[in-house]
Protein backbone atom coordinates (compact mmCIF):
# COMPACT_ATOMS: atom_id res chain seq x y z
CA UNK A 1 0.00 0.00 0.00
CA UNK A 2 1.37 3.34 -0.91
CA UNK A 3 0.91 6.52 1.00
CA UNK A 4 -2.02 7.96 -0.96
CA UNK A 5 -4.31 4.95 -0.67
CA UNK A 6 -3.52 4.68 3.02
CA UNK A 7 -4.48 8.33 3.45
CA UNK A 8 -7.75 7.85 1.54
CA UNK A 9 -8.55 4.79 3.58
CA UNK A 10 -8.27 6.68 6.82
CA UNK A 11 -10.16 9.78 5.73
CA UNK A 12 -12.88 8.04 3.65
CA UNK A 13 -15.81 8.64 5.93
CA UNK A 14 -15.11 12.29 6.81
CA UNK A 15 -14.54 13.07 3.10
CA UNK A 16 -17.88 11.57 2.10
CA UNK A 17 -19.63 13.56 4.79
CA UNK A 18 -18.03 16.71 3.46
CA UNK A 19 -19.23 15.94 -0.09
CA UNK A 20 -22.79 15.36 1.07
CA UNK A 21 -22.75 18.65 2.95
CA UNK A 22 -21.39 20.52 -0.06
CA UNK A 23 -24.01 19.10 -2.44
CA UNK A 24 -26.80 19.97 -0.02
CA UNK A 25 -25.49 23.50 0.04
CA UNK A 26 -25.56 23.62 -3.76
CA UNK A 27 -29.10 22.27 -3.86
CA UNK A 28 -30.34 25.40 -2.20
CA UNK A 29 -30.58 27.61 -5.27
CA UNK A 30 -31.79 24.66 -7.41
CA UNK A 31 -34.76 24.13 -5.13
CA UNK A 32 -35.45 27.81 -5.16
CA UNK A 33 -35.91 27.63 -8.92
CA UNK A 34 -39.12 25.64 -8.49
CA UNK A 35 -40.60 29.06 -7.92
CA UNK A 36 -42.43 29.72 -11.25
CA UNK A 37 -41.60 33.42 -11.42
CA UNK A 38 -37.90 32.74 -11.02
CA UNK A 39 -38.02 30.01 -13.60
CA UNK A 40 -39.83 32.11 -16.15
CA UNK A 41 -37.14 34.72 -15.79
CA UNK A 42 -34.34 32.26 -16.55
CA UNK A 43 -36.06 29.82 -18.89
CA UNK A 44 -34.83 29.19 -22.41
CA UNK A 45 -37.73 29.26 -24.82
CA UNK A 46 -38.28 25.90 -26.48
CA UNK A 47 -40.44 26.21 -29.54
CA UNK A 48 -40.98 29.70 -30.75
CA UNK A 49 -42.10 31.22 -34.02
CA UNK A 50 -38.52 31.06 -35.31
CA UNK A 51 -38.39 27.31 -34.92
CA UNK A 52 -41.50 26.87 -37.00
CA UNK A 53 -40.35 29.41 -39.56
CA UNK A 54 -37.22 27.35 -40.01
CA UNK A 55 -39.33 24.22 -40.38
CA UNK A 56 -41.53 25.89 -42.95
CA UNK A 57 -38.56 26.91 -45.03
CA UNK A 58 -37.47 23.29 -45.24
CA UNK A 59 -34.02 23.85 -43.74
CA UNK A 60 -32.65 21.09 -41.56
CA UNK A 61 -29.32 22.17 -40.06
CA UNK A 62 -26.65 20.07 -38.39
CA UNK A 63 -28.68 19.24 -35.30
CA UNK A 64 -31.68 17.90 -37.13
CA UNK A 65 -32.56 14.26 -36.38
CA UNK A 66 -35.04 11.94 -38.01
CA UNK A 67 -35.73 8.64 -36.34
CA UNK A 68 -36.65 6.94 -39.58
CA UNK A 69 -34.25 4.51 -41.13
CA UNK A 70 -32.13 6.14 -43.89
CA UNK A 71 -34.52 9.08 -44.09
CA UNK A 72 -33.15 12.33 -45.48
CA UNK A 73 -36.37 14.26 -45.40
CA UNK A 74 -36.93 17.53 -43.65
CA UNK A 75 -39.92 17.99 -41.38
CA UNK A 76 -42.06 19.87 -43.91
CA UNK A 77 -41.63 19.28 -47.62
CA UNK A 78 -42.05 22.93 -48.54
CA UNK A 79 -41.57 22.45 -52.29
CA UNK A 80 -44.16 19.69 -52.52
CA UNK A 81 -47.06 22.07 -52.87
CA UNK A 82 -45.21 24.12 -55.50
CA UNK A 83 -44.62 20.96 -57.48
CA UNK A 84 -48.24 19.95 -57.16
CA UNK A 85 -49.46 23.35 -58.36
CA UNK A 86 -47.06 23.51 -61.30
CA UNK A 87 -47.98 20.00 -62.37
CA UNK A 88 -51.72 20.14 -61.87
CA UNK A 89 -52.42 23.75 -62.74
CA UNK A 90 -49.97 24.37 -65.57
CA UNK A 91 -48.35 21.28 -67.03
CA UNK A 92 -51.47 19.10 -67.26
CA UNK A 93 -53.89 21.58 -68.83
CA UNK A 94 -51.37 23.25 -71.15
CA UNK A 95 -49.94 19.92 -72.25
CA UNK A 96 -53.40 18.86 -73.29
CA UNK A 97 -53.96 22.16 -75.06
CA UNK A 98 -50.65 21.81 -76.93
CA UNK A 99 -51.38 18.30 -78.13
CA UNK A 100 -55.04 18.75 -78.95
CA UNK A 101 -54.26 22.11 -80.54
CA UNK A 102 -51.64 20.50 -82.74
CA UNK A 103 -54.04 17.74 -83.77
CA UNK A 104 -56.73 20.27 -84.58
CA UNK A 105 -54.31 22.35 -86.63
CA UNK A 106 -53.21 19.31 -88.61
CA UNK A 107 -56.77 18.29 -89.34
CA UNK A 108 -57.65 21.83 -90.41
CA UNK A 109 -54.55 22.09 -92.55
CA UNK A 110 -55.36 18.78 -94.22
CA UNK A 111 -58.95 19.81 -94.87
CA UNK A 112 -58.08 23.24 -96.21
CA UNK A 113 -54.74 22.81 -97.95
CA UNK A 114 -54.67 19.07 -98.37
CA UNK A 115 -51.90 16.72 -99.29
CA UNK A 116 -48.81 18.02 -101.07
CA UNK A 117 -48.60 16.12 -104.31
CA UNK A 118 -45.64 15.92 -106.62
CA UNK A 119 -45.78 18.69 -109.22
CA UNK A 120 -44.24 16.61 -111.99
CA UNK A 121 -45.02 13.01 -112.86
CA UNK A 122 -42.74 10.38 -111.37
CA UNK A 123 -39.83 9.34 -113.55
CA UNK A 124 -39.86 5.82 -112.15
CA UNK A 125 -36.15 6.09 -111.47
CA UNK A 126 -35.18 5.65 -107.83
CA UNK A 127 -32.60 7.12 -105.50
CA UNK A 128 -31.37 5.48 -102.32
CA UNK A 129 -32.23 7.85 -99.47
CA UNK A 130 -32.22 5.73 -96.33
CA UNK A 131 -30.05 2.63 -95.82
CA UNK A 132 -31.48 -0.41 -94.07
CA UNK A 133 -29.60 0.52 -90.90
CA UNK A 134 -30.97 4.04 -90.94
CA UNK A 135 -34.48 2.81 -91.53
CA UNK A 136 -34.36 0.26 -88.74
CA UNK A 137 -32.95 2.90 -86.41
CA UNK A 138 -35.68 5.32 -87.42
CA UNK A 139 -38.50 2.85 -86.96
CA UNK A 140 -37.16 1.56 -83.65
CA UNK A 141 -36.88 5.08 -82.28
CA UNK A 142 -40.28 5.95 -83.74
CA UNK A 143 -42.01 2.91 -82.27
CA UNK A 144 -40.45 3.55 -78.86
CA UNK A 145 -41.38 7.21 -79.07
CA UNK A 146 -45.01 6.37 -79.74
CA UNK A 147 -45.16 3.80 -76.93
CA UNK A 148 -43.52 6.24 -74.52
CA UNK A 149 -45.81 9.07 -75.58
CA UNK A 150 -48.97 7.00 -75.18
CA UNK A 151 -47.96 5.53 -71.82
CA UNK A 152 -46.77 8.93 -70.64
CA UNK A 153 -50.06 10.54 -71.63
CA UNK A 154 -51.85 7.75 -69.82
CA UNK A 155 -49.85 8.51 -66.67
CA UNK A 156 -50.85 12.15 -66.84
CA UNK A 157 -54.43 12.02 -68.12
CA UNK A 158 -55.57 8.39 -68.09
CA UNK A 159 -57.23 8.55 -64.70
CA UNK A 160 -59.76 11.08 -65.92
CA UNK A 161 -60.94 8.79 -68.68
CA UNK A 162 -60.14 5.11 -68.37
CA UNK A 163 -60.67 4.65 -64.65
CA UNK A 164 -64.34 5.54 -64.85
CA UNK A 165 -64.72 4.01 -68.31
CA UNK A 166 -63.29 0.55 -67.66
CA UNK A 167 -63.45 0.14 -63.89
CA UNK A 168 -60.72 -0.42 -61.32
CA UNK A 169 -59.68 -3.95 -62.27
CA UNK A 170 -58.92 -3.08 -65.88
CA UNK A 171 -57.44 0.26 -64.96
CA UNK A 172 -55.05 -1.38 -62.49
CA UNK A 173 -53.57 -3.53 -65.24
CA UNK A 174 -53.57 -0.75 -67.76
CA UNK A 175 -51.79 1.80 -65.61
CA UNK A 176 -49.23 -0.58 -64.14
CA UNK A 177 -48.51 -1.83 -67.66
CA UNK A 178 -48.05 1.77 -68.74
CA UNK A 179 -45.59 2.44 -65.97
CA UNK A 180 -43.61 -0.73 -66.69
CA UNK A 181 -43.36 0.00 -70.42
CA UNK A 182 -42.52 3.63 -69.79
CA UNK A 183 -39.84 2.92 -67.19
CA UNK A 184 -38.17 0.02 -68.94
CA UNK A 185 -38.35 1.23 -72.55
CA UNK A 186 -37.33 4.76 -71.64
CA UNK A 187 -33.62 4.03 -71.19
CA UNK A 188 -33.62 1.95 -74.40
CA UNK A 189 -35.13 4.90 -76.26
CA UNK A 190 -32.42 7.09 -74.77
CA UNK A 191 -29.61 4.88 -76.09
CA UNK A 192 -31.15 4.59 -79.56
CA UNK A 193 -31.84 8.31 -79.78
CA UNK A 194 -28.22 9.13 -79.00
CA UNK A 195 -27.10 6.70 -81.74
CA UNK A 196 -29.48 8.08 -84.35
CA UNK A 197 -28.57 11.66 -83.46
CA UNK A 198 -24.89 10.85 -83.93
CA UNK A 199 -25.61 9.13 -87.23
CA UNK A 200 -27.58 12.03 -88.67
CA UNK A 201 -25.50 14.85 -87.20
CA UNK A 202 -23.51 15.86 -90.30
CA UNK A 203 -26.57 16.07 -92.57
CA UNK A 204 -28.35 18.28 -90.09
CA UNK A 205 -25.71 20.94 -89.58
CA UNK A 206 -27.39 24.26 -90.37
CA UNK A 207 -26.56 25.95 -93.66
CA UNK A 208 -27.42 29.22 -95.37
CA UNK A 209 -30.22 28.00 -97.60
CA UNK A 210 -32.15 26.76 -94.53
CA UNK A 211 -32.94 30.38 -93.76
CA UNK A 212 -34.44 30.94 -97.20
CA UNK A 213 -36.30 27.71 -96.78
CA UNK A 214 -37.98 29.03 -93.64
CA UNK A 215 -38.72 32.38 -95.22
CA UNK A 216 -40.62 30.58 -97.95
CA UNK A 217 -42.49 28.47 -95.40
CA UNK A 218 -40.85 25.30 -96.60
CA UNK A 219 -42.90 25.39 -99.79
CA UNK A 220 -45.61 23.65 -97.84
CA UNK A 221 -48.36 25.60 -99.56
CA UNK A 222 -48.78 26.15 -103.28
CA UNK A 223 -47.49 24.50 -106.38
CA UNK A 224 -44.07 24.58 -107.91
CA UNK A 225 -42.43 26.73 -105.29
CA UNK A 226 -39.72 24.66 -103.70
CA UNK A 227 -37.01 26.42 -101.77
CA UNK A 228 -33.49 24.99 -101.87
CA UNK A 229 -32.78 22.03 -99.61
CA UNK A 230 -29.94 19.58 -99.21
CA UNK A 231 -30.37 16.09 -97.82
CA UNK A 232 -32.32 17.53 -94.94
CA UNK A 233 -34.47 20.62 -95.33
CA UNK A 234 -34.93 23.34 -92.74
CA UNK A 235 -37.93 21.70 -91.14
CA UNK A 236 -36.17 18.38 -90.75
CA UNK A 237 -33.21 20.11 -89.21
CA UNK A 238 -35.41 21.84 -86.67
CA UNK A 239 -36.92 18.48 -85.69
CA UNK A 240 -33.38 17.06 -85.45
CA UNK A 241 -32.16 19.86 -83.20
CA UNK A 242 -35.28 19.72 -81.04
CA UNK A 243 -34.54 16.07 -80.42
CA UNK A 244 -30.87 16.83 -79.87
CA UNK A 245 -31.72 19.39 -77.19
CA UNK A 246 -35.15 18.89 -75.65
CA UNK A 247 -35.02 15.17 -76.43
CA UNK A 248 -31.78 14.69 -74.52
CA UNK A 249 -33.07 16.77 -71.62
CA UNK A 250 -36.19 14.61 -71.48
CA UNK A 251 -34.02 11.49 -71.42
CA UNK A 252 -31.73 12.85 -68.71
CA UNK A 253 -34.62 13.94 -66.51
CA UNK A 254 -36.32 10.62 -67.16
CA UNK A 255 -33.29 8.76 -65.89
CA UNK A 256 -33.35 10.83 -62.70
CA UNK A 257 -36.93 9.68 -62.14
CA UNK A 258 -36.39 6.12 -63.30
CA UNK A 259 -33.64 5.15 -60.86
CA UNK A 260 -34.49 6.42 -57.38
CA UNK A 261 -31.75 4.22 -55.94
CA UNK A 262 -28.95 6.73 -56.43
CA UNK A 263 -30.02 8.87 -53.52
CA UNK A 264 -31.17 11.85 -55.57
CA UNK A 265 -33.23 14.14 -53.41
CA UNK A 266 -36.98 14.49 -53.49
CA UNK A 267 -36.56 18.08 -54.73
CA UNK A 268 -34.38 16.90 -57.59
CA UNK A 269 -37.08 14.44 -58.62
CA UNK A 270 -39.77 17.13 -58.44
CA UNK A 271 -37.83 19.31 -60.86
CA UNK A 272 -36.90 16.38 -63.07
CA UNK A 273 -40.58 15.51 -63.27
CA UNK A 274 -41.61 18.99 -64.40
CA UNK A 275 -38.81 19.26 -66.95
CA UNK A 276 -39.58 15.76 -68.21
CA UNK A 277 -43.29 16.45 -68.60
CA UNK A 278 -42.90 19.83 -70.28
CA UNK A 279 -40.23 18.55 -72.68
CA UNK A 280 -42.06 15.35 -73.52
CA UNK A 281 -45.43 17.03 -74.08
CA UNK A 282 -43.79 19.59 -76.34
CA UNK A 283 -41.96 16.93 -78.33
CA UNK A 284 -45.13 14.87 -78.65
CA UNK A 285 -46.97 17.84 -80.10
CA UNK A 286 -44.17 18.48 -82.61
CA UNK A 287 -43.93 14.76 -83.40
CA UNK A 288 -47.55 14.85 -84.53
CA UNK A 289 -46.49 17.39 -87.13
CA UNK A 290 -43.53 15.23 -88.15
CA UNK A 291 -45.77 12.20 -88.51
CA UNK A 292 -48.30 14.10 -90.58
CA UNK A 293 -45.72 15.59 -92.95
CA UNK A 294 -43.96 12.26 -93.30
CA UNK A 295 -47.09 10.26 -94.12
CA UNK A 296 -50.36 11.83 -95.15
CA UNK A 297 -49.01 15.31 -95.73
CA UNK A 298 -46.47 14.73 -98.48
CA UNK A 299 -46.70 12.39 -101.39
CA UNK A 300 -43.68 10.15 -101.71
CA UNK A 301 -42.10 10.72 -98.29
CA UNK A 302 -43.24 7.62 -96.47
CA UNK A 303 -42.07 5.31 -99.22
CA UNK A 304 -38.60 6.69 -98.68
CA UNK A 305 -38.52 5.64 -95.05
CA UNK A 306 -40.36 2.42 -95.80
CA UNK A 307 -38.31 1.11 -98.71
CA UNK A 308 -35.26 3.29 -98.54
CA UNK A 309 -35.76 4.60 -102.09
CA UNK A 310 -37.44 7.78 -103.29
CA UNK A 311 -38.54 8.77 -106.76
CA UNK A 312 -36.29 11.05 -108.74
CA UNK A 313 -39.06 13.60 -109.05
CA UNK A 314 -39.60 13.66 -105.33
CA UNK A 315 -35.89 14.20 -104.73
CA UNK A 316 -35.73 16.97 -107.32
CA UNK A 317 -38.69 18.82 -105.84
CA UNK A 318 -38.03 18.42 -102.13
CA UNK A 319 -34.26 18.15 -101.86
CA UNK A 320 -32.90 19.73 -105.04
CA UNK A 321 -29.33 20.26 -103.76
CA UNK A 322 -29.09 16.67 -102.59
CA UNK A 323 -30.54 15.54 -105.91
CA UNK A 324 -27.79 17.36 -107.79
CA UNK A 325 -25.20 15.44 -105.79
CA UNK A 326 -26.65 12.00 -106.24
CA UNK A 327 -28.63 12.09 -109.48
CA UNK A 328 -26.06 10.00 -111.31
CA UNK A 329 -26.90 7.12 -108.95
CA UNK A 330 -30.55 7.07 -109.98
CA UNK A 331 -31.56 3.60 -111.03
CA UNK A 332 -34.64 2.06 -112.56
CA UNK A 333 -37.17 0.76 -110.09
CA UNK A 334 -36.70 -2.87 -111.17
CA UNK A 335 -32.99 -2.71 -110.44
CA UNK A 336 -33.47 -1.38 -106.94
CA UNK A 337 -36.59 -3.06 -105.72
CA UNK A 338 -37.71 -5.56 -108.25
CA UNK A 339 -41.23 -4.28 -107.85
CA UNK A 340 -43.54 -1.44 -108.77
CA UNK A 341 -42.45 2.12 -108.23
CA UNK A 342 -45.07 2.57 -105.54
CA UNK A 343 -44.35 -0.16 -103.02
CA UNK A 344 -46.95 -1.11 -100.42
CA UNK A 345 -47.00 1.53 -97.72
CA UNK A 346 -46.18 0.74 -94.18
CA UNK A 347 -48.19 2.26 -91.42
CA UNK A 348 -46.39 3.49 -88.34
Amino acid sequence: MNLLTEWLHTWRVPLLALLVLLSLGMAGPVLAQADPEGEIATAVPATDADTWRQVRSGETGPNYRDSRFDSNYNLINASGETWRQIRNRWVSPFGLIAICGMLAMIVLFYLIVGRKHLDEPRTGRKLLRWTALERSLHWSVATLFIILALTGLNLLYGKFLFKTLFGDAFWAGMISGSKMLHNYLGPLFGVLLVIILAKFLVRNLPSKHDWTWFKQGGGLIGKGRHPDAGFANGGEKVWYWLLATAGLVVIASGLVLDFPNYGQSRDAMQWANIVHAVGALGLTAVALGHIYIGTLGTEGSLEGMATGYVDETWAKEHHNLWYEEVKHQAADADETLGEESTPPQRSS
Partner: protein
Amino acid sequence: MAQMKFMCDAERCIECNGCVTACKNANDVEWGIQRRRVVTLNDGEPGEVSISVACMHCDDAPCMAVCPTDCFYKTDDGIVLHDKDLCIGCGYCLYACPFGAPQFPKQNAFGERGKMDKCTFCAGGPANSKEEEYQKYGANRIAEGKLPLCAEMCSTKALLAGDAQTVADIFRQRVVQRGHEDGAWSSLEGRPATADELAYDATRQQ
Protein backbone atom coordinates in the same frame (compact mmCIF):
# COMPACT_ATOMS: atom_id res chain seq x y z
CA MET B 1 -69.29 12.70 -38.93
CA ALA B 2 -66.03 12.97 -37.12
CA GLN B 3 -63.02 14.39 -38.89
CA MET B 4 -60.05 12.41 -37.68
CA LYS B 5 -56.80 14.24 -37.04
CA PHE B 6 -53.44 13.73 -35.41
CA MET B 7 -51.79 16.44 -33.41
CA CYS B 8 -48.41 16.25 -31.77
CA ASP B 9 -47.74 18.60 -28.90
CA ALA B 10 -44.10 19.50 -29.40
CA GLU B 11 -43.88 20.79 -25.82
CA ARG B 12 -44.54 17.31 -24.56
CA CYS B 13 -42.85 14.97 -27.00
CA ILE B 14 -39.80 13.43 -25.35
CA GLU B 15 -38.52 11.65 -28.44
CA CYS B 16 -39.04 8.20 -26.94
CA ASN B 17 -40.17 6.72 -30.27
CA GLY B 18 -42.89 4.80 -28.46
CA CYS B 19 -45.37 5.81 -31.17
CA VAL B 20 -43.06 4.46 -33.85
CA THR B 21 -42.77 1.15 -32.07
CA ALA B 22 -46.49 0.98 -31.32
CA CYS B 23 -47.29 1.56 -34.97
CA LYS B 24 -44.85 -1.07 -36.19
CA ASN B 25 -46.37 -3.49 -33.74
CA ALA B 26 -50.02 -2.71 -34.44
CA ASN B 27 -49.69 -2.81 -38.20
CA ASP B 28 -46.96 -5.40 -38.70
CA VAL B 29 -45.33 -3.04 -41.18
CA GLU B 30 -42.90 -4.35 -43.72
CA TRP B 31 -39.16 -4.43 -43.00
CA GLY B 32 -37.51 -1.09 -43.76
CA ILE B 33 -40.75 0.87 -43.48
CA GLN B 34 -41.62 3.03 -40.53
CA ARG B 35 -44.93 4.80 -40.93
CA ARG B 36 -44.27 7.21 -38.10
CA ARG B 37 -41.03 9.08 -37.48
CA VAL B 38 -39.87 11.37 -34.73
CA VAL B 39 -38.05 14.49 -35.83
CA THR B 40 -35.86 16.43 -33.45
CA LEU B 41 -34.85 20.00 -34.15
CA ASN B 42 -31.80 21.57 -32.55
CA ASP B 43 -30.80 18.29 -30.98
CA GLY B 44 -28.59 18.83 -27.94
CA GLU B 45 -28.97 22.59 -28.06
CA PRO B 46 -31.10 24.95 -26.02
CA GLY B 47 -34.45 25.01 -27.74
CA GLU B 48 -34.35 21.33 -28.67
CA VAL B 49 -37.79 20.18 -29.69
CA SER B 50 -39.18 16.89 -30.97
CA ILE B 51 -42.29 16.06 -32.90
CA SER B 52 -43.80 12.83 -34.11
CA VAL B 53 -44.96 12.83 -37.74
CA ALA B 54 -46.82 10.46 -40.00
CA CYS B 55 -49.53 10.95 -42.59
CA MET B 56 -51.65 13.82 -41.33
CA HIS B 57 -54.72 12.87 -43.38
CA CYS B 58 -54.85 16.26 -45.08
CA ASP B 59 -58.18 17.87 -45.93
CA ASP B 60 -57.05 18.90 -49.40
CA ALA B 61 -54.63 16.00 -49.72
CA PRO B 62 -51.78 16.66 -52.18
CA CYS B 63 -51.10 12.94 -52.60
CA MET B 64 -54.66 12.44 -53.75
CA ALA B 65 -54.40 15.31 -56.21
CA VAL B 66 -51.30 14.06 -57.99
CA CYS B 67 -51.69 10.26 -57.97
CA PRO B 68 -51.77 9.09 -61.63
CA THR B 69 -53.84 6.05 -60.77
CA ASP B 70 -56.29 7.95 -58.58
CA CYS B 71 -55.98 5.26 -55.93
CA PHE B 72 -56.61 7.48 -52.89
CA TYR B 73 -59.94 8.02 -51.24
CA LYS B 74 -61.20 9.72 -48.12
CA THR B 75 -63.35 7.85 -45.64
CA ASP B 76 -66.37 9.47 -44.02
CA ASP B 77 -64.11 10.09 -41.03
CA GLY B 78 -61.74 12.17 -43.13
CA ILE B 79 -59.08 9.46 -43.18
CA VAL B 80 -56.99 9.32 -46.37
CA LEU B 81 -56.59 5.71 -47.53
CA HIS B 82 -55.20 4.21 -50.72
CA ASP B 83 -55.72 1.08 -52.76
CA LYS B 84 -52.52 -0.94 -53.09
CA ASP B 85 -53.99 -2.89 -56.00
CA LEU B 86 -54.00 0.29 -58.05
CA CYS B 87 -50.75 1.86 -56.83
CA ILE B 88 -47.89 1.63 -59.33
CA GLY B 89 -45.15 2.99 -57.09
CA CYS B 90 -44.50 6.11 -59.16
CA GLY B 91 -43.57 8.13 -56.08
CA TYR B 92 -45.61 11.21 -57.00
CA CYS B 93 -47.47 11.13 -53.68
CA LEU B 94 -44.10 11.34 -51.96
CA TYR B 95 -43.05 14.35 -54.07
CA ALA B 96 -46.22 16.17 -53.08
CA CYS B 97 -46.74 15.09 -49.47
CA PRO B 98 -45.87 17.85 -46.98
CA PHE B 99 -44.86 15.30 -44.33
CA GLY B 100 -42.77 12.72 -46.17
CA ALA B 101 -45.38 10.13 -45.25
CA PRO B 102 -45.44 7.80 -48.27
CA GLN B 103 -42.77 5.12 -48.26
CA PHE B 104 -41.88 2.38 -50.67
CA PRO B 105 -40.55 -1.13 -50.22
CA LYS B 106 -37.41 -1.52 -52.28
CA GLN B 107 -37.22 -5.15 -53.29
CA ASN B 108 -37.29 -4.58 -57.03
CA ALA B 109 -34.48 -4.16 -59.53
CA PHE B 110 -33.03 -0.70 -60.29
CA GLY B 111 -34.52 0.75 -57.12
CA GLU B 112 -37.98 0.54 -58.64
CA ARG B 113 -40.47 1.41 -55.96
CA GLY B 114 -42.90 -1.16 -54.65
CA LYS B 115 -46.43 -0.31 -53.64
CA MET B 116 -46.68 2.77 -51.50
CA ASP B 117 -47.22 2.35 -47.77
CA LYS B 118 -48.27 5.00 -45.30
CA CYS B 119 -50.12 5.52 -42.06
CA THR B 120 -53.79 4.54 -42.33
CA PHE B 121 -54.88 6.11 -39.04
CA CYS B 122 -55.19 2.43 -38.05
CA ALA B 123 -58.15 2.21 -40.42
CA GLY B 124 -56.92 -0.58 -42.70
CA GLY B 125 -57.75 -0.24 -46.36
CA PRO B 126 -59.69 -1.75 -49.26
CA ALA B 127 -59.54 -5.57 -49.28
CA ASN B 128 -61.83 -8.56 -49.67
CA SER B 129 -61.20 -10.12 -46.29
CA LYS B 130 -60.00 -9.11 -42.86
CA GLU B 131 -56.86 -11.20 -43.30
CA GLU B 132 -56.04 -9.57 -46.62
CA GLU B 133 -56.67 -6.15 -45.14
CA TYR B 134 -54.33 -6.81 -42.23
CA GLN B 135 -51.67 -8.23 -44.47
CA LYS B 136 -51.77 -5.28 -46.90
CA TYR B 137 -52.53 -2.31 -44.68
CA GLY B 138 -52.25 -3.42 -41.07
CA ALA B 139 -54.78 -3.09 -38.29
CA ASN B 140 -58.24 -1.65 -38.64
CA ARG B 141 -58.68 -0.39 -35.09
CA ILE B 142 -61.15 2.27 -36.20
CA ALA B 143 -63.58 -0.49 -37.20
CA GLU B 144 -63.25 -1.82 -33.67
CA GLY B 145 -64.00 1.58 -32.20
CA LYS B 146 -60.40 2.20 -31.16
CA LEU B 147 -58.07 5.07 -31.95
CA PRO B 148 -54.61 4.69 -33.54
CA LEU B 149 -52.24 2.78 -31.30
CA CYS B 150 -49.43 5.35 -31.56
CA ALA B 151 -51.49 8.02 -29.84
CA GLU B 152 -53.02 5.56 -27.40
CA MET B 153 -49.57 4.51 -26.25
CA CYS B 154 -47.92 7.92 -26.16
CA SER B 155 -46.41 8.14 -22.68
CA THR B 156 -46.65 11.92 -22.34
CA LYS B 157 -49.90 12.30 -24.29
CA ALA B 158 -48.01 14.50 -26.69
CA LEU B 159 -49.49 12.67 -29.63
CA LEU B 160 -53.23 13.06 -29.82
CA ALA B 161 -55.53 11.33 -32.29
CA GLY B 162 -59.25 11.57 -32.72
CA ASP B 163 -61.95 13.90 -33.84
CA ALA B 164 -60.41 17.21 -34.87
CA GLN B 165 -62.73 19.17 -32.59
CA THR B 166 -61.87 17.14 -29.50
CA VAL B 167 -58.17 17.19 -30.25
CA ALA B 168 -58.29 20.95 -30.81
CA ASP B 169 -60.19 21.45 -27.54
CA ILE B 170 -57.65 19.47 -25.57
CA PHE B 171 -54.79 21.33 -27.13
CA ARG B 172 -56.40 24.71 -26.69
CA GLN B 173 -56.88 24.01 -23.03
CA ARG B 174 -53.28 22.93 -22.73
CA VAL B 175 -52.12 26.11 -24.39
CA VAL B 176 -54.26 28.26 -22.14
CA GLN B 177 -53.36 26.48 -18.94
CA ARG B 178 -50.30 24.58 -20.06
CA GLY B 179 -51.49 21.42 -18.52
CA HIS B 180 -54.81 19.87 -19.26
CA GLU B 181 -57.05 20.51 -16.30
CA ASP B 182 -56.22 17.07 -15.06
CA GLY B 183 -52.80 17.09 -16.71
CA ALA B 184 -54.28 14.64 -19.19
CA TRP B 185 -53.60 11.88 -16.69
CA SER B 186 -57.19 11.45 -15.52
CA SER B 187 -55.89 11.21 -11.96
CA LEU B 188 -57.75 14.17 -10.50
CA GLU B 189 -61.24 12.88 -11.20
CA GLY B 190 -62.57 16.14 -12.52
CA ARG B 191 -61.39 18.49 -9.80
CA PRO B 192 -59.32 21.42 -11.08
CA ALA B 193 -55.59 20.89 -10.78
CA THR B 194 -53.52 22.96 -8.41
CA ALA B 195 -50.70 25.09 -9.72
CA ASP B 196 -48.16 22.43 -8.75
CA GLU B 197 -49.97 19.74 -10.66
CA LEU B 198 -49.88 21.63 -13.88
CA ALA B 199 -47.20 20.78 -16.36
CA TYR B 200 -45.01 23.81 -16.48
CA ASP B 201 -44.54 25.68 -19.77
CA ALA B 202 -41.13 27.26 -19.91
CA THR B 203 -41.97 29.14 -23.07
CA ARG B 204 -44.79 31.09 -21.56
CA GLN B 205 -43.15 34.38 -20.91
CA GLN B 206 -45.30 37.36 -20.10
